[in-house]
């Protein structure tokens, strides 16, 4: 048997799930990651230490193990009939939050210190200083690496296949199980990933160029 349009369609549906799962991971990871980035530069040492411990733990464990932990962990705390997307989504949110937090911390810290001090001298409240002065500048710096990390998220959703979630990679595995032509199938799967990721990579690069051009 060989690859038929039906198989391609099945893989394409998987690709849609990959996009969906990436969106969940990115949105959830952004919210949590932003809070963590703020905690990382908090004036309270305890808050800083908690955030950095969390980040070190998450960044020190492979995503695969994180996913297994959520998959089995959720069953342990009593939710044993949840769909695979919950464990996969949670694991990916946790994973992206730690990396996004570190990226954004770097961006916040790269806003020159004089800007923080000037805002303080103008008697802005801490909220105003953050929202009106620091964030607009930090966001400009953050766009390129954030889009770059989005590519990582899309690629890493492939690991959700290990907990049985049928996204692009798992769809490929299932098709391969029926026709047993691994090389062809996975080339097609890789092509799908490439089509999703390449525009993001190119966009990230052009953002970076623009930012550097502005600074020169």
């Amino acid at each position, binding site marked *: 048997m060989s690859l038929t349009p039906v198989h391609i369609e099945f893989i394409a549906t998987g690709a849609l799930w990959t996009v969906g799962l990436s969106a969940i991971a990115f949105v959830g990871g952004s919210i949590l990651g932003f809070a963590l980035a703020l905690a990382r530069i908090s004036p309270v040492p305890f808050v800083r230490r908690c955030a950095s411990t969390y980040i*070190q*733990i998450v*960044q*020190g*464990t*492979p*995503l*695969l*193990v*994180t996913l*297994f*932990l959520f998959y*089995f*962990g959720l*069953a*342990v*705390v*009593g939710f044993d009939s949840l769909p695979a997307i919950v464990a996969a989504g949670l694991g990916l949110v946790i994973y992206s939050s730690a990396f996004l937090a570190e990226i954004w911390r770097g961006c916040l810290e790269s806003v020159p210190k004089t800007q923080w001090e000037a805002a303080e001298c103008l008697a802005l409240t801490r909220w105003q200083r953050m929202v009106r002065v620091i964030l607009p500048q930090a966001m400009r710096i953050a766009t390129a690496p954030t889009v770059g990390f989005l*590519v990582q998220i899309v*690629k*890493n*959703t*492939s*690991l959700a*296949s*290990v907990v049985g979630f049928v996204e692009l*990679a798992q769809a*490929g595995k299932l098709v391969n199980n029926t026709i047993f032509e*691994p*090389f062809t199938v*996975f*080339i097609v*799967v*890789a092509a799908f*990933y*490439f089509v999703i*990721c*390449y525009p993001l*990579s190119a966009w990230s690069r052009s953002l970076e160029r623009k930012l550097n051009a502005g600074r020169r």
Partner: protein
Amino acid sequence: MTYQFDFSALLPYWPLFLEGVWLTLKLSVLATIFGFVVGTLCAVARADGPRWLKTVVAIYVEMIRNTPLLVQIFLVYFGFASLGLKVTANTAAVAALVVNVGAYTCEIVRAGLESIHKSQLEAAECLGLTRTQTYWHVIVRPAIERVYPALTSQYVLLMLASSITSQISAEELTAVANRIQSDTFRSFETYIVTGVLYIILSFVVRLAFALFALVIFPRRRKLGTAI
């Protein structure tokens, strides 16, 4: 929560865990060494090679960086098989990791090469260094020294990513964990232990890279600062 944690069920398995840790380290070290060589050669080719070579390297880097490692591992594993070559899962795992990390190393080292100022090359020429000497002492070594922290992070990520090779049943730490959890039915505890082992491993790898830097970049020690 009514779940009773029972880590004692895992105690008899500690030699297996250790074996897994050892194999993860072995896979990572091999992939790091070969990946570094491949990546650096690619970076040099992309900076100074003939036009066709530049294109080939660019295509390689883009293809690898925009597809997931899991799919690359499957492709390499089944690719070997369809070529009629019989290789073990471990060999296929190392090959896939090398192909993968080579592309990332290439990008990082390229950034380093680009950061070498033109005046350095002119100075080397004035001092009458040969082309090879210039390349080694003035371009490649300082470039790598400059991007060393980025390389370290990349290779720690590689060590963590080697867990994915468990999917083609390379016998590293995660594969061992999968086996132990199916033996003991203590899945949650098994993966907690595995996670802790990986965290320790990533500290060890970082430390090893820091110590290695002291040996290979003596200049940094003399200057007392990172350049």
